[in-house]
């Protein structure tokens, strides 16, 4: 069992406090560290997952079939990569065509939201007793640091109240659970407003608790906890301890300031888009700048919500609106990362749980379609400017280079410098690979 780090630092902290240093952070060093990290060529990779909840329509985003029976009204536009054309409603991100690889031949078997979400996010079907970890937890374990002040995995606005499977650390344990912000769920009242909801709540000491007592409390708690954990081996008390350790770490340092979006200039916040997804992408950039290796930002709708891309009705109007939000946020994210020299070391993954039917239904919508759909990989580790795989003239089936969920996740691992065949111990005793061994990664897109 690991030695808890916070009680060591408490002594340093008390010294600082006694010396009259205001605040209980080691101010300054974190910023320096982040800057150094950005310039360091050995800098570890980071990953930002843009999760499109509901199943985005590939024929109206990255794999258009204009002029065909089911093509719909959208036109194609050129991107900065010759030959690569995408939806006219994604003009800003089109400028980064040379940095993105579009996988047009995704083909999976699950067409129900909750199961498909779990499948795509863990690589395994959510059946039986095994608790498969989500991608963020797997990556956090491989490339995260145990000593980092910020958690290694942050999840912005996940749509978990539809089912927790596929959103947690599973058998990897509570240490790899995400810090969640911006979560909406049915018990909460009217939207708090994006600023408030993207902050880490309760990270400051209450006003009338002085720091000396706060430190004394933690010491006493530590005594109690070690006795209890020793007498009660198991996940639950360990998880409690881990959560507290990380919570204290978050409180102790400047780390939580990453979540203060007010520090950004208004025009920057406007560029990302004043909605939950846009501001979530801004937050992702700030977290990656500060060394967080995995951030996922869920787009559940135009401003929060869930399954917003599930356009069974009014597909074309809806996708146009969603595309505008997506375009602004994603393109600004890419621009910012590039300006900060972080694009080469940050992998961006764009995906949902499945695609949508070529056939347009009577409500002018498209329905679930896992048979042939698209995902996009961009940024670090990716050979951009290309589309892999084809769904033929009508998009009704994959014609070339099918990519299953394991193939896809193995590709993500390789782009991040992670070995997909590495095994972790599962909760049923059997070691389980990060990605199933049948995986055939799309090496053509790996830089």
């Amino acid at each position: 069992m690991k030695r808890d780090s916070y009680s060591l630092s408490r002594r340093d902290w008390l010294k600082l406090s006694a010396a009259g240093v205001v605040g209980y952070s080691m101010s300054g060093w974190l910023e320096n560290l982040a800057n150094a990290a950005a310039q360091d060529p050995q800098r570890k990779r980071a990953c930002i997952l843009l999760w499109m909840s509901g199943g985005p329509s590939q024929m109206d985003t990255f794999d258009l079939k204009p002029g065909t029976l089911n093509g719909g009204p959208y036109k194609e536009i050129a991107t900065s990569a010759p030959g690569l054309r995408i939806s006219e409603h994604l003009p800003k991100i089109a400028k980064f065509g040379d940095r993105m690889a579009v996988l047009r031949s995704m083909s999976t078997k699950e067409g129900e939201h909750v199961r498909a979400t779990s499948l795509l996010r863990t690589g395994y079907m959510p059946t039986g007793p095994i608790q498969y970890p989500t991608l963020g937890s797997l990556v956090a374990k491989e490339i995260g640091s145990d000593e980092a002040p910020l958690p290694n995995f942050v999840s912005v606005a996940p749509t978990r109240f539809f089912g927790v499977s596929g959103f947690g650390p599973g058998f990897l344990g509570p240490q790899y659970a995400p810090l969640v912000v911006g979560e909406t769920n049915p018990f909460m009242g009217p939207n708090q407003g994006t600023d408030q909801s993207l902050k880490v709540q309760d990270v400051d000491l209450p006003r009338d608790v002085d720091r000396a007592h706060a430190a004394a409390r933690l010491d006493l708690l530590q005594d109690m906890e070690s006795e209890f954990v020793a007498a009660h081996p198991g996940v639950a008390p360990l998880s409690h301890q881990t959560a507290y350790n990380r919570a204290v770490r978050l409180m102790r340092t400047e780390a939580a300031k990453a979540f203060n979006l007010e520090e950004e200039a208004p025009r920057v916040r406007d560029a990302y888009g004043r909605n939950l997804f846009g501001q979530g992408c801004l937050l992702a950039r700030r977290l990656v700048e500060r060394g967080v290796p995995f951030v996922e930002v869920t787009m559940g709708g135009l401003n929060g919500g869930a399954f917003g891309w599930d356009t069974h009705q009014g597909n074309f109007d809806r996708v146009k609106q969603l595309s505008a939000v997506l375009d602004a946020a994603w393109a600004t994210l890419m621009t910012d990362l590039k300006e900060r020299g972080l694009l080469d070391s940050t992998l961006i993954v764009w995906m949902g749980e499945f695609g949508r039917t070529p056939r347009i239904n009577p409500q002018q919508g498209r329905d679930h379609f896992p048979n042939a759909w698209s995902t996009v990989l961009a940024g670090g580790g990716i050979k951009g400017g290309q589309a892999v795989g084809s769904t033929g003239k009508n998009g009704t089936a994959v014609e070339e280079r099918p990519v299953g969920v394991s193939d896809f996740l193995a590709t993500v691992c390789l782009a991040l410098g992670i070995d997909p065949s590495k095994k972790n111990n599962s909760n049923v005793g059997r070691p389980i690979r990060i990605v199933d061994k049948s995986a055939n990664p799309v090496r053509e897109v790996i830089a």
Partner: protein
Amino acid sequence: MRSLRWGAGPALLGLALLCPPLHAGPPRPDAVADLAARIDRHIAAGYAARGAVPAPPADDAEYIRRVYLDVAGHTPSAWEVREFLADKSPDKRRRLVDRLLEGPHYTANFARVWRDLLLPQNNNQTARFFAPQIESWVRVRLREDRPYDAMVRELLTAAVVPPNGPPRSTPGGPAFDQGALAFYQANELLPENIASAASRIFLGVKLECAQCHDHPFAQWKKNQFWEYAAFFSGLRPQVRQQGAFSPAQDNGERHEIKIPNTETVVQARFLDGKQPQWGDKPKVRKTLAEWMTAPDNPYFARATANRLWAHFFGVGIIDPVDDLGTDTLPSHPELLDELAAELVKHRFDLKFLVRAITASKTYQLTSTATHDSQNEPQAFARMLLKGLTPEQVFDSLVAATGYRERPQGRGMPPGFGGPNTVRSEFLSKFANASDKRTEHQTSILQALSLMNGKFVADATGLQSEGTLGAVLDAPFLDNRERLDALYLAALSRPMRPQEAARLVPYVTKGGPSGDPRKALADVFWVLLNSSEFILNH
């Protein structure tokens, strides 16, 4: 459990013969003690087979807290603990259970347990809208001590269309029941959804996979699924509209269904393959309900017994609890069969099983580990740690801190337009992050909420009007007694010697600022933030 000293036994017996019983509780059939003993025998046989060494018995403090949480859904108050610890009667543990089973908290707690079961597993927002109605439907029946099988039959055959005109808003009306309708509406009135739900909840058989293709892990074929769903084919799914739910239709005599995306029409057939005998005017759902709850149905009684076992032990004899339809083996097959048989024999009186389980030595083992073999969950060699539901967390905090909530106005519930209450904010923060109660996980945000959030801050502030305030203001207590009062309120036990050795001096010295009042507040904060508080052990 303490046994009587030899001298006292005959004397007490003599007294008992002379005096009438002091407590007119429910009759104490030997059946409870009998079944408890049989449970223990089966489990003990399991120890031998596994080479497991059982933990020692739990002491009274551990027992009262555990039983309060499991039965009543919250921790006991300090004075309830004091009374129980001081009570010298030999059967006090069983009488405690009897008392709790007659109380309102039992019905409230178990209404929530069944509600969570009855709601669709994917927890979508629309379904949660129906949660309060489903909960109150169950609560009414629990209060009436309705036998479980009757309750299930009532739900499965409930009218979903009012006989005349729009639905009445009063629940439990003669023919039309808003609460039962809520269950159907939560499942979108789709035959396949209701069928899956009924099978999962009441039979412990998870059929969902077989909806689209033959089940990968069990013997269920796709056709079988739809033959079973056909029992609900008379229900007309509601049309989606903004906000409102259109009234459903129910053709009670229909028993065939077309498998979606095919031209195949199948007839209703029971899961065990038997064909129902349809008369002239068949009551289709009633036929299914009777098959499902029949004493010889291979799943119903076992699934129910298994669920109850899992509630009290954290893990079922078959785990996961909805795996009865697969190859998963029960850890103690004869025990499960015996519990099922007893349920049937006692006409599905769930309270009987609760009494027997809580009276068993197995249930009363401590949760402190004394041997590695006790870490195997299904050895049941010690009590496993169980997570609390969000409601239990909040209700236990309220019990410990003496919090008084301001009365809320009526109107839409929180999350659907109504304002957040302290309670609803808690419920949302403490939603479970793991599906397994024995692997309960605390998140960073929950930790921060308990450490710095307003509720605990208020309860541990010097201006507190609840428990801490009372302890600080009591003039006739010394520091040790004040500390014990805080321990009793938060952890349902007094301090252990090593804790007293640490904390009494801490409080006397007054902590970093030399103020004993602040030091006491510190200790209370620590107790409320501990694993021992947030877990059921």
